[in-house]
């Protein structure tokens, strides 16, 4: 059985294995490269020999007698015919050889300084620690390296060179690993200590291997393929290479073969041992499999992303999960997820059989191959039985209380839905299953924000919780409806998006009216069937009236829409732009609904609803808003045309005039500068003043173009609805399309780089004018000149590079911050404390406010007063 050791680890120290220990910890000596004999039985003295642990069930270990899982395996060893340098110790060996005498083995420093360093080391190890102690060793090594005559025996040091990766040359003579080992052996124990090693725990000569420990077969199990053929692990392949070369070297040594052959074989052995430790040492070609794939040897097993830590220990694979492309479905609930039937028929939930559900569960077994069905049955003893056409009847007979049935997921089941990168708690939320045709996951558009998802090919993952506890906890804590308010923003992160906002905006606009038929059509689309709509004399219902039907009956709200002009004194209900949004007792009295009321992240009306009502109610109100918006667009029609941004001829002329005017004023400023008449601003040079003035003038002109474009927007077009409602796009986008793109800015300045004194050869040297430094006077629709296009490409490229370099960097920074902060908590007195009791902040966020319970980070006192006064 597995022995559990209950001992607290105080410290761990890594040392070099001595040949003695290697021999002592081994159970067998490997002498032959063959793995199996003709019968397929492991060869005695081979690499798969049965003394090194069992991997086949039924067999027993020849060393400890244990069965497959009892025996953890035992080391073996190879006696190398000639010693070989350990590749990971080459640098240390190089240092040790250079700072010791080749003849007497002492460190090349006089006794007095050696004594001093010894004392320093003692003090360091006592007062500080290992690392500081090693700092002394580094000092010793770097000092001794430079000395060329041994102070102890007056021997002259010959310059030693390391020829990468692992051979040493003294002048042109090569030192064999035997020579190296001999020299290291000569270093006396006290000097070894000064080099940072422990003479008992790790002598430097042990870094030149004479014995090689062989890991047990359990570390490198062979796989039997379906064809009956055995496939060996990469490590076994490498080890058999080592044993084979070693054997050949032995034979040649015994036969007294010429020096060259011996040396070649020795180098080959060195190569194999080196690649056994690490298969990507520079200057060494990686050892390859027969197929050409590089072998995965010891270091590669552990190192980097594909290694043991990051691949197997920090990250694991799971069952009961699915992944697919996502696509939108505005008609499913905000806390639902559409699951393709193929997936639903394979994902299961274990259900315990009780007297209440036995008949219900039997139906699942009965319907077996057809979708809602059971895939496995578990007996009370824990045996798993697969449901098949053949076993169906038997299982139906057998099924009794105490059994459990793994049934496929169906509508209403709880699943976790996730999109990477998971930077939020809202990146994994609970959704309710809705089985749908086709092969993509479907999700409601209002939850794209928390996942940061779009539908240009994004994939998402889905997990099925397997126990009642997990499901209950997940639904309570992670359901989409409980996550509507973001704890970062303090406002809803689940909210209306593009079309919903455009739709609600045109629905609640000033003269928006619908006839009886349309009005009820809209409401039924939104899921409202019992309304008390008021119609006017002509039998028309106002859009605001229709919107009011989906609001809670006791809602009170005052806010402003994005169309607000920010007048000095607000005219409130009499606002000319209909920007004063007022809801009283669930009636929208004035104001147009836009993203500032219902949009994700900034919708304050939605925020008030989310704070006041239960999660379930909030989700239905939100769902109704979204559906009503879409339904409005369905009735009204919504389209974006290129001609939306067309301007009448006079406006085009005006824009031209504005730009020409500002260009000429730029020219006069430049002339002033050249004539020396320009007065510099405080703290600026003359040149800087000029740049500032030019940029100011050009920006002014673009702003004027913007207001010209805006003043022209008299009729309601798709583009204007989108920009006004905040659904998508802004005034700048419109101005850049219809009017003028404006000045291109590179790192905060006009574009100056390129040729000498000019960006491109199309301009005169030293031209300071607007056009020569990246001002684009045309709009996207009108078309850019070649020079303008080039300037635009400069800034575009800079922006693209900037985002593609910054995103991974800032992501990693964020990750590090999260890891550093992960076990801070907010105490009952609202102070932030670390897990060890350290006080981090005396009041969370300095004001002690829980953002998720606030209104966008602060407390809306006015509203609180009003609510108290009302109640």
């Amino acid at each position: 059985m597995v022995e559990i050791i209950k001992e607290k680890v105080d410290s761990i120290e890594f040392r070099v294995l001595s040949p003695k220990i290697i021999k002592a910890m081994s159970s067998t000596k490997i002498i032959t490269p063959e793995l199996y004999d003709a019968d397929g039985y492991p060869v005695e003295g081979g690499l798969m020999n049965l003394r090194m642990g069992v991997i086949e069930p039924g067999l027993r270990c020849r060393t400890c007698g244990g069965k497959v899982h009892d025996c953890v395996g035992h080391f073996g060893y190879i006696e190398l015919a000639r010693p070989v340098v350990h590749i990971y110790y080459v640098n240390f060996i190089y240092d040790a050889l250079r700072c010791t005498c080749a003849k007497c083995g002492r460190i090349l420093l006089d006794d007095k300084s050696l004594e001093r360093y010894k004392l320093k080391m003692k003090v360091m190890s006592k007062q500080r620690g290992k690392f500081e102690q090693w700092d002394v060793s580094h000092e010793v090594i770097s000092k001794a390296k430079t000395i060329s005559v041994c102070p102890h025996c007056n021997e002259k040091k010959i310059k030693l060179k390391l020829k990468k990766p692992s051979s040493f040359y003294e002048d042109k003579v090569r030192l064999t690993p035997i020579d190296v080992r001999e020299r290291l052996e000569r270093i006396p124990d006290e000097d070894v200590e000064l080099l940072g090693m422990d003479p008992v725990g790790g002598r430097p000569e042990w870094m030149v291997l004479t014995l090689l420990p062989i890991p047990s077969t359990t570390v490198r199990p062979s796989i039997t393929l379906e064809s009956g053929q055995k496939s060996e692990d990469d490590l076994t392949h490498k080890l058999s290479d080592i044993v084979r070369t070693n054997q050949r070297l032995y034979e040649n040594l015994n036969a007294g073969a010429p020096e060259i052959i011996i040396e070649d074989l020795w180098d080959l052995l060195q190569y194999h041992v080196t690649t056994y430790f690490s298969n990507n040492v520079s200057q060494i070609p990686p050892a390859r499999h027969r197929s050409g794939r590089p072998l995965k040897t010891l270091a590669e097993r552990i190192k980097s992303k594909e290694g043991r830590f990051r691949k197997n220990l920090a990250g694991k694979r799971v069952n009961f999960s699915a992944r697919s492309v996502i696509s939108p479905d505005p008609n499913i609930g905000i806390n639902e997820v559409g699951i393709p039937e193929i997936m639903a028929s394979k994902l299961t939930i274990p259900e315990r059989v009780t007297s209440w559900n036995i008949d219900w569960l039997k139906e699942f077994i009965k319907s077996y191959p057809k979708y809602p069905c059971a895939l496995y049955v578990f007996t009370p003893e824990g045996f798993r039985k697969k449901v098949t056409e053949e076993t169906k009847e038997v299982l139906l007979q057998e099924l009794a209380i105490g059994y459990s049935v793994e049934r496929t997921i169906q509508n209403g089941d709880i699943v976790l839905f996730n999109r990477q990168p998971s930077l939020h708690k809202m990146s994994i939320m609970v959704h309710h299953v809705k089985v749908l045709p086709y092969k993509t996951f479907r999700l409601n558009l209002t939850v794209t924000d928390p996942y940061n998802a779009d539908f240009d090919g994004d994939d998402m993952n889905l997990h099925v919780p397997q126990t009642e506890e997990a499901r209950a906890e997940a639904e309570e804590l992670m359901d989409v409806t409980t996550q509507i308010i973001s704890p970062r923003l303090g406002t809803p992160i689940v909210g209306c998006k593009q079309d919903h906002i455009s739709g609600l905006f045109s629905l609640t606009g000033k003269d928006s009216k619908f006839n009886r038929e349309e009005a009820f059509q809209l409401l039924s689309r939104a899921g409202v069937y019992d309304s008390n709509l008021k119609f006017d004399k002509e039998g028309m219902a106002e859009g605001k009236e229709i919107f009011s039907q989906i609001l809670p009956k006791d809602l009170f709200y005052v806010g402003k829409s994005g169309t607000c002009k920010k007048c000095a004194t607000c005219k409130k209900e009499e606002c000319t732009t209909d920007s004063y949004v007022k809801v009283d007792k669930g009636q929208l009295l004035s104001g147009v609904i836009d993203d500032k009321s219902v949009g994700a992240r900034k919708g304050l009306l939605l925020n008030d609803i989310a704070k006041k009502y239960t999660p379930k109610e909030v989700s239905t109100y939100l769902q109704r808003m979204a559906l009503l918006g879409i339904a409005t667009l369905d009735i009204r029609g919504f389209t974006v045309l290129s001609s939306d941004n067309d301007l009448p001829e006079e406006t085009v002329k005006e824009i031209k005039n504005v730009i020409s005017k500002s260009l000429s004023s730029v020219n006069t400023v430049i002339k002033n500068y050249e004539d020396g008449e320009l007065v510099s601003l405080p703290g600026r040079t003359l040149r800087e003043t000029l740049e500032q003035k030019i940029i100011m003038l050009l920006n002014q002109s673009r702003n004027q173009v913007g207001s010209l474009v805006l003043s022209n927007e008299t009729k309601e077009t798709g583009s204007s609805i989108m920009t006004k409602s905040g659904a998508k796009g802004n005034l700048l986008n419109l101005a850049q399309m219809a009017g003028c793109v404006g000045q291109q800015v590179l790192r905060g300045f006009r574009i100056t780089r390129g040729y000498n004194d000019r960006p491109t050869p199309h301009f005169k040297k030293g031209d300071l004018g607007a056009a020569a430094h990246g001002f684009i006077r045309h709009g996207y629709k009108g078309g850019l000149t070649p020079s303008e296009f080039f300037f635009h490409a400069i800034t575009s490229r800079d922006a693209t590079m900037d985002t593609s370099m910054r995103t991974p960097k800032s992501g990693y920074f964020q990750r590090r911050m999260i890891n550093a902060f992960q076990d801070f908590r907010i105490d009952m007195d609202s102070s932030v404390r670390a897990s060890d009791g350290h006080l981090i902040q005396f009041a969370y966020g300095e004001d002690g406010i829980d953002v998720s319970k606030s209104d966008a980070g602060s407390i809306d006192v006015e509203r609180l007063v009003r609510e108290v006064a009302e109640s």
Partner: protein
Amino acid sequence: MAEEEKKENVESNAEVKEEEPTIDILSHSYVPKFEILPQEEVEKILKELKVDRLHLPKILMTDPVVKLLNAKVNDLLKITRKSYTAGTSIFYRVVVNV
């Protein structure tokens, strides 16, 4: 060994003296208001927060502000800072030796 350390100490002291600020840093707009908390209030605060000095944020003895205030080790400094979220916020730091 011991001599060396002494030498180093003398040197470092000399450096510190040179670095002593020549302007009144306490009145600089970026430096928040520092006060040494009176002893009786220290006890009150520690009791209120239910911590000992070990768990409070530290400030080094060698900090220019600490030197100017003439604070001793284990003194509590009350810092009143301007805060983006709360207007003003209060922070405490314990003076510690290097």
